[in-house]
């Protein structure tokens, strides 16, 4: 049988069957098409402005490595004039993160980009290993996901950067759309598909340039570009219910490859049908569970109300043991000085039963939150409360 030729250049031997539309392409054409599509996403969503300093949230995994590689290529090819920096979070997971950080360090050299690493231990006083020791494996992803979102912001701030890009791909977004439907989480449904989140209040915006890129194509791109990435799963394995949504996506993709993008499209459309009309894009809980470990927020359907209740509940504080966090690293100011700033008005003629979330600031750390205290501070409080007093 003669080798199939590439449908695009009609010259070279096709070596890739695109997972997205089953076109058979040669290596060069595949790489070009992939990069062109990311470029299209960036241009059509006006993600960057010339001279912008952008931090790439880098975990060393395939998505963020491909993102760094593609952005570097496009930045040079299309003269975005971006100042790219790698920003990594050290969750403090031995046997997983320490190894993947080595990958990021090599990437920094390969792509000639500065690298900044921020650790959970310095930000929160807890490593994930310690958290798991305290609370057990079940539900630890909640802590990790909530902490990571803030850590990225804090890291960016220390670098004076106002834009963080993350490696979330189309599969992640589709999974989130389905998860939010299954959980019945309307506010998140309305914001999780936005390509840009955050910004107005928190002044670090997030975006996901790979939002329309299939996970399988990202793997192929990394393979054909011979990128150096780290492929081990997090040792604190993801939660079962999210796993069912992930496997559902994979089954749908097998039945009809376009399904992933179709779900993303449906998600975007439904966001405009939610009571707050997709206006509430904020990054405080952006794209639930779209973290590097694929299960950044492991909540079971039952416990989410508990968590919301927990975040509103007043809890006694014990300053001697706590690590207080403020938005800019200065000592914590009096709570009374922090004014809750609503960014949008409640629409007057909204139907009654659907409650809208209002974006405000956490009374403790100033991070954006729809509750009085942000999720990270709430979780920290519960952790610190149970931490035994350490004497030297």
């Amino acid at each position: 049988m003669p080798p199939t030729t590439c449908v695009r250049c009609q010259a070279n031997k096709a070596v890739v069957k695109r997972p997205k539309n089953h076109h058979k392409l040669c290596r060069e054409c595949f790489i070009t098409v992939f990069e062109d599509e990311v470029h299209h996403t960036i241009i059509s969503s006006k993600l960057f402005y010339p001279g912008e300093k952008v931090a790439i949230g880098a975990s060393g995994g395939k998505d963020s490595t491909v993102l760094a590689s593609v952005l570097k290529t496009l930045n040079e090819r299309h003269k975005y004039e971006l100042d790219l920096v790698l920003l990594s979070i050290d969750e403090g997971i031995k046997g997983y993160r320490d190894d993947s950080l080595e990958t990021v360090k090599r990437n920094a050299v390969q792509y000639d980009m500065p690298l900044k690493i921020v650790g959970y231990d310095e930000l929160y006083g807890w490593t994930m290993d310690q958290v798991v020791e305290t609370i057990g494996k079940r539900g630890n992803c909640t802590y990790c996901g909530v902490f990571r979102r803030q850590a990225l912001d804090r890291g960016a701030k220390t670098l004076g950067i106002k834009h963080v890009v993350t490696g979330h791909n189309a599969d992640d977004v589709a999974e989130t759309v389905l998860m939010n439907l299954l959980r019945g989480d309307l506010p998140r449904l309305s914001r999780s598909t936005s390509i840009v989140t955050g910004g107005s209040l928190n002044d670090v915006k997030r975006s996901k340039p790979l939002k329309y890129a299939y996970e399988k194509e990202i793997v192929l791109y990394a393979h054909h570009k011979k990128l150096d990435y780290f492929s081990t799963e997090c040792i604190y394995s993801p939660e079962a219910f999210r796993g069912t949504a992930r496997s559902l996506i994979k089954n749908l993709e097998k039945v009809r490859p376009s399904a992933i993008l179709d779900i993303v499209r449906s998600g975007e459309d439904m966001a405009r049908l939610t009571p707050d009309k997709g206006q509430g894009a904020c990054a405080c809980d952006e794209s639930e569970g779209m973290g590097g470990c694929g299960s950044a927020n492991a909540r079971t359907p039952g416990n989410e109300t508990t968590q919301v209740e927990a975040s509103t509940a007043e809890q006694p504080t014990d300053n001697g043991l706590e690590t207080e966090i403020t938005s800019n690293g200065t000592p914590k100011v009096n709570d009374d000085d922090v004014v809750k700033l609503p960014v949008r008005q409640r629409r007057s003629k909204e139907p009654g039963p659907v409650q809208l979330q209002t974006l405000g600031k956490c009374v403790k750390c100033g991070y954006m939150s729809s509750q009085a205290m942000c999720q990270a501070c709430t979780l920290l409080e519960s952790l610190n409360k149970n931490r035994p007093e350490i004497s030297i």
Partner: protein
Amino acid sequence: MHDSPPHDNNPYTPLSTYTQCRDCFIDYVDSKAVKRFTVLQRETRTSTKPEPRRYVAGLSFGSSSTVLTQILDKTAQYHASRKGSSPFEPLIVHIDTDLSARTDSQDTPAYRLLAKYRERFPNVSFECVHLSKVLSVKTIDWTTIPVPEGGNDAERLQLFFSSLPSVTSRADSLRLFIRHLLLDVAIQRSYSALLFGHSTTALAALTLSEVANGRGFAVPWQINDGLFTVCTYRPSADPASSTSTGEASQEDAKIQFPIYYPLREILKAEVMTYLGTTPAVQELIPSANGASSSVVSHKDQSIEEVMARYFDGVEGPYSGIVTNVVRTAGKLDRLVTEHHCRLCGITLDQEGDSTWAGELGDDLTQDAVNPDTGKLCYGCKRSMGG
């Protein structure tokens, strides 16, 4: 422990967590459906005087639609026995999708099965309509979809289905055709509403199928109860030229028609238990041909089947999510726009089309299939083209 709990209002609990006696359970399911009938009557009444309630209900011979038939039959009997009650006249319509059978024959398997239903449920009327009749339905603009000319209607439909690119496309268009045909029967004969027998589980699966088919925008229109805008189209003067030149039909009229899902608060497991209480009805239902058994080839599966399978597996351990999905869909707005998709009949979402940046990268081969893509919504384009 009691054998039968007191007759108070139990809060909604999944079946597995509390025991009910047989009669209480039947009452519980019946009352959930009857409550929806009451809502339907309240929301669609046009005058204060009692008026006849004439409803068309779809019957697929599946478990849920059979239970709907059973409850409609009971309700009709109840109203007939009460002098003060306004007439309650359901028409149960089965759409025969067997395209190989003769369309005018009265001796098809569907007819024979329907005769058994008729015998079993004497208080409601039944009718069998062949799917090929959909070609004369005016609520679809037939110039926008590629139905081949020549041959009889059943053959044309058969050719159309085999020309579609995937099993999912076929399942999706078949579902739309059945919906249109039932709607057409209801409107043509001046019935006052159309009822579907979807259980909560079926509605949840339908919601996610719609989402996976790129029809997220249509979800509130497809899933929620209420008035549905129906457009009819007048074919342009010369039917032969209209398909070849791609000239679309004229929009003729728009009417509002109520579509309801009375079993929307009953889980599939409850439907099955309900059927189990009356074996004589259960026996009517043709046994499913191994649909939910072991894994088959993914190529022969449709998205609908994948979703049904997912919810079969998930209803037990995470039953809360089934209701979650339907309730969430219920909170989405129905956006009214001027133009409607010429196939599925849902309002067209021009804003979504203009902001969409996730093209599939099909530019190489596109536009060979359909000249009228501007008249179809994203989901229908996907169904017709790939």
